[in-house]
């Protein structure tokens, strides 16, 4: 074995390497956060409150306009996609938590795992061919279908880990006073896991709001009109950022930064909220 001096040096170098590697991992994301906020907030400052109520500019217009249609579209998509994703995710989680040994639960588990690796752009193609083509229209509903599928594995995973955190003694206590499995689940286990479930809902929500690829061929990017019809085309913040970033116009790039900062702030706020909600779980 090497001498103590050499081993000590190795140890120091190891610590330095780990610190450097970790810093290198976080640096790109920290820089992305900083420049997005910087560029985006300066766009918003120039656009003023109009950023939230105006439609986007045309390539050579004088003012920056806003992102109102995309913002409302994102909220509409969220309203359509979150309930089915959260509801299905919860049923799945309850099922695998209640009947862990069953063949069906094993299948659900495998299905959920496989689902996490389906590229979301493929979900968009499926929504296009199953919903957009037959109805002859891009629609918020088609987008919501793709978003539900894209977020389902996340809501399922979050809920099932929330349910698994509930100590077994609560189940035993419920059974010992004669509660059925059904009542135990909905009256005891789910209420006890409510903070974890709430945080799972928030994480699913973040996932839905930030998803771009699932919307590409489903929603039709109705860019200048505030959408109100779930059966008609809509725009969404991530889609607007994507299209405007790839466009050749400087004005569009500025709007893209503004929208990116807005989306990032919302995502981080939801993340922080999900952490706050979970805190104080004392079992």
């Amino acid at each position, binding site marked *: 074995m090497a001498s103590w001096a050499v*081993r000590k040096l190795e*140890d120091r170098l190891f610590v330095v390497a780990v610190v450097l590697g970790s810093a290198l*991992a976080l640096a790109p*994301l920290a820089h992305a956060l900083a420049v997005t906020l910087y560029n985006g907030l300066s766009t918003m400052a120039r656009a003023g409150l109009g950023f939230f109520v105006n439609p986007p500019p045309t390539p050579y217009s004088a003012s920056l306009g806003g992102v109102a249609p995309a913002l409302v579209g994102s909220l509409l998509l969220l309203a359509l996609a979150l309930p089915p994703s959260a509801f299905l995710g919860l049923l799945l989680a309850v099922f695998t938590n209640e009947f862990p*040994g069953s063949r069906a639960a094993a299948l659900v588990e495998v299905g959920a795992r496989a689902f996490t690796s389906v*590229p979301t752009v493929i979900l968009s193609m499926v929504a296009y061919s199953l919903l957009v083509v037959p109805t002859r229209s891009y629609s918020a509903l088609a987008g919501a279908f793709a978003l539900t599928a894209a977020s389902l594995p996340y809501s399922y995973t979050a809920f099932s880990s929330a349910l698994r955190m509930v100590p077994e003694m609560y189940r035993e206590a419920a059974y010992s006073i004669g509660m059925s499995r059904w009542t135990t689940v909905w009256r005891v286990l789910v209420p006890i896991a409510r903070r974890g479930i709430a945080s799972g809902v928030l994480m699913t929500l973040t996932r839905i709001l*930030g998803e*771009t690829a699932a919307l590409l061929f489903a929603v039709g990017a109705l860019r200048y009109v505030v959408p109100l019809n779930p059966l008609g085309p809509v725009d969404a913040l991530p889609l607007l950022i994507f299209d405007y970033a790839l466009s050749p116009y400087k004005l569009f790039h500025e709007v893209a930064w503004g929208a990116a900062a807005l989306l990032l702030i919302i995502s981080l706020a939801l993340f922080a909220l999900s952490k706050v909600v979970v805190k104080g779980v004392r079992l």
Partner: protein
Amino acid sequence: MSAPVGEMLSEKDKIFYFSLLPPALTTLGLLALIVSTIGAKAALVLPQALTILAANVWDPENERYGLLAPVLGTLVVASIAGAVSLALGLPLTLAVAELLRGRLGSVLQTLLEMASAFPTVVIGLWSARYLAPFLSENVMKPLYSSFGFIPTFSCRPLGGYSLLTAGLAIGFSVVPYTASIMIESYRLIPSTYREACYGIGATRYETARILVSLARPAIAGSVLLGVARAMGETTIAAMTVGNAMNISACLFEPSYTVPALIAAQFGNANLYRYAEPVLYLAALVVLALALALSAVGFKLVSGWRVRIVG
């Protein structure tokens, strides 16, 4: 393992079981729906699949298609992203789970979770505007002028939109995911191993080396899961890879990945007879690869977890 559920459950529980069964099987139903839809749409060109995969041309006007560049590009980009997620995920894992086992460690872990809440389109925008020019000036040009004789560095970088940029950008975005699986696995190693190492006078470095070698299958599995995710990443790829039907050994040249090709071409594909089926075929290829890789990755990770705990 899979005892017939019916025999152990009461009547009431059976009703519960069967009432939850249909929604529980929706994931599998959806999965089957996805695969069959993509397969059915690609059916028109399936007989020529091999020819299409081996050719490299995108000329919808003349109905000539080939997917070689995007398929190779996908593999290259996903491999770079996998390498990044190993090279950066391992230090993060060791920092969180080995060196900083207190408040600082949990702060770092929270930062990681926060990073995974970043929308990919924001990372894509940042990569296109900052990472690409930065890499072009500070990495690609020096590498080209000093090591231009190596094929992977043998072309003059233009603007930065390239396989390397896409691979690194997707790698950065996948690191939090890969690292979280590594950390979760690493924490499962019973502390008796660590105590045994320190007990015979091993340094932190020697201990970490032993524990990492113990966790090797889980680490490999996490990287595979990261590669599977990187493969399907669309937004970042479309914003950084340069969108060119170009096959080159050089990593500094613009090329395509399958998701980037789909993002760029699917919108207008219905104008042509075969463009759509070819794109569905491309999707099928990536779907199959991603599912296979993630199945192996999950198997490695969960198999290792059972062994290390049990």
